[in-house]
């Protein structure tokens, strides 16, 4: 058995659809699922004589992502035409950015499963227009739907800094969180808002010598699962191929592969990296974009605390678990809601429990975000404080939360209405305990007698008290009384 070790090298190209109201170079609405060719105009149809006009919002969104990725933002960028013939590209060129992208040389920090973070280099990010869609459902003919044509796309290219499928997935999910936090993309995978193309190869050490396998690029992946699995598959495939053929990376032997989601295999698409000649040249119909310091500052002012920063702050400042902090920062709306509740003076850990165990569960069922449940951060802060003050039990708080969502009423009113105010009056509770003890001499005997029945009997007695008070007794107070009486 020879000694073989390998290191996985992955770089990623990501296309993110920006959530502007209108398209990149015309005023057509960006809308998913509209009737074919109903969101088009002469400009995005590439009719003779039309001219593009840059969507400033898209440019600002793109710069904002560049800033969040710690990129250098040049004050001068321009547009280029990338030529290729395809029916879903009506002009037969795509307006893109070639040698002067709007952002370059940044990094994105991803959380590692082992804890901590890792910086992944960002080579560049540039804006371009999306193509339409070819449909092959009409027999001998193909049809073209150009609704998507001209949708603003941000292409982000990373350094080959990732060393596993899990890291690639972490980068993708982290980027999704970031663009959602920045409000520049819905990043809805189902709607194709994020598409990935990983470039993968291995550095193999065999008998002391080092070999690099040919790079394979997997095209057009649109789920995190497919992304991670395709990388893992490709690692195994390349290792097997190398051991079988000894093929190493050479000029021009990069391949392009597609991912078969059902078979979970990658399929060869293009044997050799075709000498694609896109004949880039500067787009003469658009003027270069010159940022001013004021404009850049205006964009920068829209940067918010990024998800990973927030997550780490929750862990440090509020002592939340990394898992809980991750759940709270998965969506900006959740994080913002949480921040507001905490700002209203509620105890963070308590708020976290209310939101992650009840709020997000309801929101999930309703298919909405937590800020759209019809409960206010003040209401939830109030509820959290009531639990804090033992006015209601934490189990009652779940029912109160649910009814708050249903009725829109405040927690205090509901606690009264639902008879969920906890009884903590020791005098009254002692009377009830005495009554229960009198009614259940057998159990009392089991407790006082010790042994294995003791714990169960004690629980039984506690349950009896709770029953008599219809759940309103403060279990802690009852427990104290029981301890006192039975010791």
């Amino acid at each position: 058995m020879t000694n073989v070790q390998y290191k996985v090298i992955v770089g990623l190209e990501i296309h993110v659809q920006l959530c502007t109201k209108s398209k990149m170079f015309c005023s057509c609405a960006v809308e998913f699922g509209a009737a074919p060719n109903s969101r088009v105009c002469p400009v995005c149809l590439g009719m003779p004589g039309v001219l593009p006009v840059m969507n400033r919002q898209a440019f600002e969104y793109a710069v904002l992502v560049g800033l969040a990725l710690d990129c250098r933002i040049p004050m001068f960028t321009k547009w280029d035409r990338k030529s290729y013939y395809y029916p879903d590209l009506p002009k037969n060129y795509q307006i893109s950015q070639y040698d002067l992208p709007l952002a370059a040389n940044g990094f994105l920090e991803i959380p590692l499963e082992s804890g901590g973070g890792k910086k992944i280099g960002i080579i560049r990010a540039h804006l371009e227009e999306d193509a339409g869609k070819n449909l092959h459902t009409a027999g001998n003919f193909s049809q073209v739907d150009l609704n998507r044509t001209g949708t603003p796309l941000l292409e982000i290219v990373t350094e080959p800094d990732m060393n596993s499928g899990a890291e690639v997935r972490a980068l993708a999910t982290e980027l999704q969180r970031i663009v959602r936090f920045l409000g520049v993309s819905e990043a809805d995978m189902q709607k194709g808002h994020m598409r990935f193309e990983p470039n993968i190869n291995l550095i193999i050490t065999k008998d002391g010598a080092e070999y690099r396998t040919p790079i394979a690029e997997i095209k057009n992946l649109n789920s995190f699962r497919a992304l991670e699995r395709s990388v893992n598959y490709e690692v195994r495939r390349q290792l097997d191929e190398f051991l079988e053929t000894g093929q190493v990376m050479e000029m021009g032997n990069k391949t392009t592969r597609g991912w078969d989601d059902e078979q979970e295999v990658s399929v060869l698409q293009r044997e050799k990296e075709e000498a694609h000649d896109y004949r880039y040249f500067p787009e003469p119909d658009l003027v270069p974009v010159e940022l001013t310091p004021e404009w850049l500052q205006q964009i920068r002012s829209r940067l918010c605390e990024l998800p990973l920063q927030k997550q780490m702050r929750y862990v440090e400042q509020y002592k939340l678990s990394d898992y809980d902090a991750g759940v709270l920062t998965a969506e900006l709306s959740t994080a913002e809601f949480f921040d507001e509740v905490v700002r209203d003076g509620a105890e963070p850990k308590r708020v976290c429990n209310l939101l992650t165990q009840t709020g997000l569960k309801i929101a999930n069922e309703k298919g909405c975000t937590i800020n759209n449940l019809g409960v206010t951060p003040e209401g939830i802060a109030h509820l959290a404080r009531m639990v804090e003050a033992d006015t209601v039990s934490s189990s009652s708080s779940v029912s109160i939360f649910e009814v708050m969502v249903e009725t829109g009423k405040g927690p205090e009113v509901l606690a009264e209405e639902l008879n969920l105010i906890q009884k903590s009056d020791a005098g009254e509770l002692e009377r009830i305990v005495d009554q229960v003890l009198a009614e259940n001499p057998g159990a009392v005997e089991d407790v006082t007698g010790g042994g294995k029945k003791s714990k169960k009997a004690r629980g039984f007695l506690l349950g009896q008290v709770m029953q008599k008070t219809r759940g309103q007794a403060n279990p802690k107070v009852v427990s104290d009384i029981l301890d006192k009486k039975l010791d």
Partner: protein
Amino acid sequence: MEQLSAKELRDGIAAGRISSLEATRAVFERIRRFEPTIGAYLSTCQDMALERAADVDGRIASGKTVGPLAGVPVAVKDNMCTTFGATTCASKILANFHAPYNATAVERLLAADAVIVGKANMDEFAMGSSTENSGLKQTVNPWDTTRVPGGSSGGSAAAVAARLCFAALGSDTGGSIRQPASFCGVVGLKPTYGRVSRYGLVAYGSSLDQIGPLARTVEDAALMMNIIAGHDPADSTSVDEATAPVCDYLQKLDEPIKPFRIGVVPQFAAGADEQVQKALSEAMEIYKKLGAEITEVEMRHLDYAIAAYYVIATAEASSNLARYDGVHYGHRTANPNDYVEVYSKSRAEAFGQEVKRRIMLGTYALSSGYYDAYYLKALKVRNLIRSDFSAAFEKCDCIMMPVAPTTAFKIGEKVNDPLQMYLSDIYTIAANLAGVPGISIPCGSDDRDLPIGLQIMTPTFAEDKLLRIARMYEKETDWHKKEPRLAND
């Protein structure tokens, strides 16, 4: 009535002295008589024109305000999109193309209450200098029907010269307004790049294309400029009013510019025919009498203009014309086997020779491995030419040179010799590369009584000055009043 200038006609109509309907009918009567010979139009829109003319007359009669070109019959080159009639670019590939929108310049004409009579013939996609490259029709020169009208705006120039309209819009990428204006004895102005919106002008060389007027007089050109010039939010390359305000080009038109200096480039102009050179020197004499000082300027890179132009324009064209692929609109081949054949056969069938030649040239120039040697180099030359103009304009107010090396040549004379044809743009191309405005005004005739044009160029956005300088000459001479004698006239 057809003797009137557009401005005179407009004033007469506005004052209620002349009926637009009558003027329009008169134009269509001439079209009926002469168009079969001249072939200036690819399509006419008589019903719409008469309707608009009657409407203008009615509004004037009822005392309503009308636009600055109310009731004046004008023509539009067929590379400007119109919702009426077809927009063909004189190409078989767009022979049945009906645009869903109006070009901004057309919208502005309509808003000025102009009466559009038809769409003028041109070289296919504006590629050519004789209108012989039209895929749909041959236009002849009204001064000699065996000769070309020039191009690519040959239809517009011939229509104005033959009084088949009172003024026209053309487009100029390398001389396509000025050269046919010169060949047909009319005034043709290529404005500064960015002065007139290109929205709706079917692109040939996007960084060079510019719409401008062809007219009988400098005054008419100024009138047309008042209507079409100005910023358009739909054209990112159109210059905003803050950077270069549009002025009323008629307001100071008759005020001579004094004193002023004319720059000439003797060794460059020496390449022109003797008769052209002679007419030019006579024009200089007149300007001298008007108080101008003639000064020689050095423009060292003009000799490279044609080479740079044919790289840049064709590179842009190869990309601009990629969209005519038979997929979405326009000609599609009958029985393609696959989508690649839709492209290759549709394009092979419907594009003319010259268009194919330029697409291939441009594709080559942009190809990887050649980009630096051709396209990038051409851009550098373009910058040098720009600098030449800037330096020259330090020393003079305007530059004068011939429009074309010859007068109108025979139909068929150069059509099989593309390089000879390209050389007919030698004097006009530099203005497009530099973006400066240039005008061609009638300044003489050769021994065959064919018109000769004088070209004047000024710094960017100095159209007011350019028009005033041209007007000074026009007031002193009668060349612009000469008319071609048409058969059956």
